[in-house]
């Protein structure tokens, strides 16, 4: 019964969320907090905050962790598979069908027409990342940072992974500002 609920909750939130994992988060919250009452809003917020500090997809981390808490290892696997499996299968079938008809002229037209649409999606995503950078880093540092990263990666050909690792090291090593320290103490004392 419980495993069935886990499957339904994560299957539904994943199948109704478009635009990648982050858009499914409010839907997961609806299922986990409001419908099945597996955790309260505050707990959910904490789990989400922690998932956000780790790399990789958010939706699968949320599913895995919440599934584990409710139903152990089977619950974890259940929640993850419900989140990702249906769409992976669809993806493989649909794209391989397209590939089989690749030599037809109208299919070639289809594959060409989709490129500008993807470009628009990527542009929108780029802008979202710029905006959320500006929220935390302000315009000056965001612009500076973007220019430096662009030059390093595109003109000097440095692997983005190296740039990212360097940034993570800076984030950890750089001492906190006094206002940040106060916030930290407050956060820890709760």
């Amino acid at each position, binding site marked *: 019964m419980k495993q069935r609920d886990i499957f339904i909750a994560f299957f539904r939130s994943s199948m109704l969320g478009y635009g990648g994992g982050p858009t499914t988060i409010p839907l997961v919250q609806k299922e986990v907090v409001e419908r099945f009452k597996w955790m309260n809003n505050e707990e959910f917020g904490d789990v989400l905050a922690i998932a956000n500090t780790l790399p*990789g997809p958010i939706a699968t981390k949320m599913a895995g962790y919440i599934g584990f808490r409710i139903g152990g290892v089977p619950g974890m696997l259940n929640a993850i598979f419900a989140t990702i499996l249906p769409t992976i299968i669809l993806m*493989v079938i649909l794209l391989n069908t397209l590939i089989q008809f690749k030599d037809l002229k109208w299919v070639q037209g289809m594959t060409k027409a989709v490129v500008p649409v993807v470009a628009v999606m990527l542009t929108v995503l780029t802008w979202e990342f710029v905006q959320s950078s500006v929220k935390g880093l302000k315009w000056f540092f965001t612009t500076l940072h973007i220019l430096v990263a662009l030059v390093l990666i595109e003109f000097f050909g440095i692997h*983005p992974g190296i740039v990212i690792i360097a940034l993570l090291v800076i984030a950890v090593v750089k001492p906190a500002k006094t206002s940040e320290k106060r916030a930290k103490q407050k956060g820890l004392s709760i």
Partner: protein
Amino acid sequence: MIYLHIFWAFFLTNILGYGGGPATIPLIQKEVVDHYHWVTAQEFNEALAMGNALPGPIATKMGGYIGYQVGGYIGSGLAVLATVAPSLILMLTLMGLLYKFRKSPQVKRMTLYVKPTIAVLLGVMAFESFYDSYFQIGIGHILLLGIGSYLLMEKVKVHPGLVVFASLVYGAFIL
């Protein structure tokens, strides 16, 4: 050997991509297109369009699909495992520690500091897609499809799946 490469490619991209699945897309592209040459930039874009048209997380769809194309069912499973498992294991094992430090500025800064670089990677990918498209279909079609899809998706809030479908119909009949 190929399985090892598949696992490594998706492990690397997902352990470096901060900010959720979409942040890993340009890193995945770098590995599977530029480094391993498993798919072309065009094929990657097609998969990305399909991935965006279908619901659910994007990183696992890309991993599952590309893994399948390169290494069949095992490749697909490995790519998904490498995408999902490392950060989930971190989360499950370090939950207590992470909970304690969830409001620490250092931890919060990690995600924030990486964001502008992810924006650069996404922006470059967007530019390259427009650039490739310019040579494939010319500026007129790009403007029509680009502006049309932007308005439909972002202003009218039409489902991205329908917008991709509409562009496929446009391509089939007009291009």
